[in-house]
């Protein structure tokens, strides 16, 4: 990981070791290399191979309206406050293949906020970002997404938002007309905008505490006065250095508010 950082500037050095070990072993098997040292040697000399390895090192697993209670809480307890701003900026950090971005865009449109909201969707994986831009998701997943959407307090028919063709569902491109998809690393890059809401769910779990603190520091710095931070349902800032820099806004749904 040290060598990858020096060569490619991708910093996996402070990722949790248990899941990183599993992913490297899985990559070894899938890429058919006999040992980690052979893989390392080849990766450092072959940027294309590094691109393939990157797909194993990051975890593009998400779903739309994952943890519906989170989106319901955003709708009920955060949107009314966002409405008081003339314009809103939202950062979806570690957006992976875009499921979370489209979920938020749908929610904001239903709440009449999308037109004055700028969403920044960032990830370190260029292949994931490209998928996110396209907004095309497998049709087989849509049934689960629909159920999530309804439990998240959806106001419409979920099918209003996509066109089904072949085995895929293409989401209405106007949903992300104003989304900026950008390459950004929580491990090495800095803050790029002032935001009112940061949604970063199930990303920090792959970081050790040092890197978690770095990421939380970026979020804290990015958020405007009393801005909101949404985490994954089993994540907590209690074990971080930022425990006293945020208030709890919705405890079970892991929505926090920046303390001045």
């Amino acid at each position, binding site marked *: 990981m040290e060598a990858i950082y020096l060569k490619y500037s991708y910093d996996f050095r402070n990722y*949790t*070791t*248990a*899941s990183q*070990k*599993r*992913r490297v072993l899985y990559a070894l098997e899938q890429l058919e290399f006999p040992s980690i040292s052979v893989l390392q040697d080849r990766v450092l000399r072959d940027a294309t191979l590094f691109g393939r390895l990157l797909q194993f090192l990051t*975890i593009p*697993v*998400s779903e739309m309206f994952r943890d519906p209670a989170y989106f319901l809480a955003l709708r009920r307890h955060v949107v009314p406050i966002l409405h008081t701003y003339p314009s809103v900026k939202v950062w979806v950090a570690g957006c992976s293949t875009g499921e979370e971005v489209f979920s938020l865009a749908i929610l904001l449109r239903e709440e009449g906020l999308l037109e004055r909201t700028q969403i920044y969707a960032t990830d370190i994986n260029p292949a994931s970002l490209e998928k996110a831009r396209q907004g095309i998701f497998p049709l087989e997943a849509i049934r689960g997404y629909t159920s999530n959407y309804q439990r998240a307090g959806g106001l419409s028919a979920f099918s209003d938002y996509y066109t089904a063709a072949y085995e895929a569902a293409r989401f209405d491109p106007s949903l992300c007309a104003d989304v900026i998809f950008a390459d950004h690393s929580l491990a090495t890059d800095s803050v790029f905008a002032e935001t009112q809401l940061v949604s970063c769910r*199930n990303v*920090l*779990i*792959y970081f*050790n*505490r040092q890197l*978690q603190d770095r990421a939380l520091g970026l979020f804290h710095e990015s958020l405007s006065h009393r801005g909101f931070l949404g985490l*994954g349902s*089993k*994540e*907590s800032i*209690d*074990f*971080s250095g930022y425990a006293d820099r945020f208030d709890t806004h919705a405890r079970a749904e892991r929505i926090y508010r920046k303390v001045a």
Partner: protein
Amino acid sequence: MKRDSTRHRSFPLRRVEAVVLGASAGGIDALSAVLDGLPAGWRIPMAVVLHLPESHDSHLAEIFAQRLPIPVHEALDKMPLTDGCLYFAPPGYHLSIERGRRFSLSCEPPVLYSRPSIDVLMASAADAYGPSVAGFLMTGANEDGAEGLLCIHRAGGLTAVQDPKEALVSTMPLAAIARHTPDHVLPLRDLRTLLQQLEPVHAL
């Protein structure tokens, strides 16, 4: 110090720093039987993976908190393992133990159709604790846990498997026994005795 009893077997002294347990079909009853009667002064942290549907909240922590005299939690990301506490993996997340003796969660794909996976917990516990971890594997209808228990065995830890003849579903114990020779293959009653005879490494 051995706690001999006329009713129970006694096992060679074994010092451990953590216990990891896994079960699937029939697992709640099996786990209850193993944990029943834990003393209030219990010192060793324990982590459990029981296979449950992903889409529902788990109430395992509440259920076992009522039955046991020790603190019971659903594990959160980066939560430290505290002496004497019992932790359950949350539904829909893999649970690992890091070398710093803290939990980490992950949304990696299911292993053997299971998330949380017993293999993931046990393999990480073997890395984190080496020879001072004990793994208990009980009833279940798939092969999750066999690989994890093998990791614990290779790290020098203690492995214990429920007697397949007694298990509600014997697939999981049989799969583990096929991968290595466990230190103990026992009915639940004796697994319970074995657990209670483990000694915490940092005992005063």
